[in-house]
């Protein structure tokens, strides 16, 4: 079946900032302090005591999936699904979840990416600064 997927030029690419963050219910370390925003965002559901950034990358996403190996062995994949009227739709796969969202000037996507020991690992996709 043919779907109305916007055509994606071969050279279409979109830049995003990708962070891997280790979140723990214990402790009180927010490193770097910019992760306070993440702590606040999640406060309604869970109050993480410590958030520690494991990695930070600026990725240019294209149609071909870009693999990102997480510290717990999970392999995340990010790709540009569509780009129409300067609105990019991204596909973020963190097994077993597969999310699709449109980018905006504001707003980060937080995807729980499993455990690392007793702590939670999160993949955070944000607009490039």
């Amino acid at each position, binding site marked *: 079946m043919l779907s109305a997927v916007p055509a994606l030029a071969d050279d279409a690419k979109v830049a995003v900032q990708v962070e891997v963050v280790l979140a723990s219910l214990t402790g009180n370390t927010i490193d770097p302090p910019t992760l306070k925003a993440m702590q606040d*965002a999640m406060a309604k559901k869970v109050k993480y005591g410590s958030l520690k950034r494991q990695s930070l990358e600026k990725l240019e996403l294209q149609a071909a999936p870009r693999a990102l190996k997480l510290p717990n062995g999970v392999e995340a994949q990010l790709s540009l699904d569509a780009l129409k009227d300067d609105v990019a739709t991204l596909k973020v796969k963190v097994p*077993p979840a597969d999310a699709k969202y449109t*980018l905006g000037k504001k707003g980060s996507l937080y995807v729980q990416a499993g455990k690392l020991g007793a702590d939670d690992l999160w993949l955070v996709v944000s607009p490039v600064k």
Partner: protein
Amino acid sequence: MSNSNDNPARKKFEPMLSPFVDGELTPEERQQVEQHLAANKESAMQVADFRAASGLMRLTLEQQADQEDWKDFSNEVLAKLTPEKAPLFERLKTSLSEMFTYQRGAFVGAMVTAALMVTVGGAAFLMGSQKNTGYANERMQMQSVKVDQGATVAPVVMETDSGDAIIWMVDQPEKQKDDEKNDKPKGEENEELDGDPAAPKKAGDL
């Protein structure tokens, strides 16, 4: 230390040492003094003292000269010498020449600072004018969340007031049990969760 009067050579050359340092001797006299200095340590030390004092004096004078404002020195002197003002271009040329000669450090520093400001400003302008492709929307928006069939977790999406979206993975032990009971093969087909009970929920639903 021996007295200079004891050494006839030193006695002869001592009055020539200061002129030697000041470059006031004839080439022949200069050569004679150099030969004497090579042989007489005491005179050589005296010459070194003269040179040190001379260097100190020059440094002091240069510092005093730096404190003076020489900007319009030539123009003021020329104004006194000539009743008519020099042409504007000539005056500018002279001012620049003076600035470069007498205030070279400050002049070069100012030029470097100006060049840096232009470079940084230009780079900032270029970076600012480069728009990020794909960010036409003000806020991000979730489209869909799926999980692999047979997954024992279900996604729960929470959207925050600040425009973020959080995807939690919630355990579904019942589903695991059902799968085991039905002995369903775990295929690669995805399970679309949009619209079903496990579909993404807003923060208020959580």
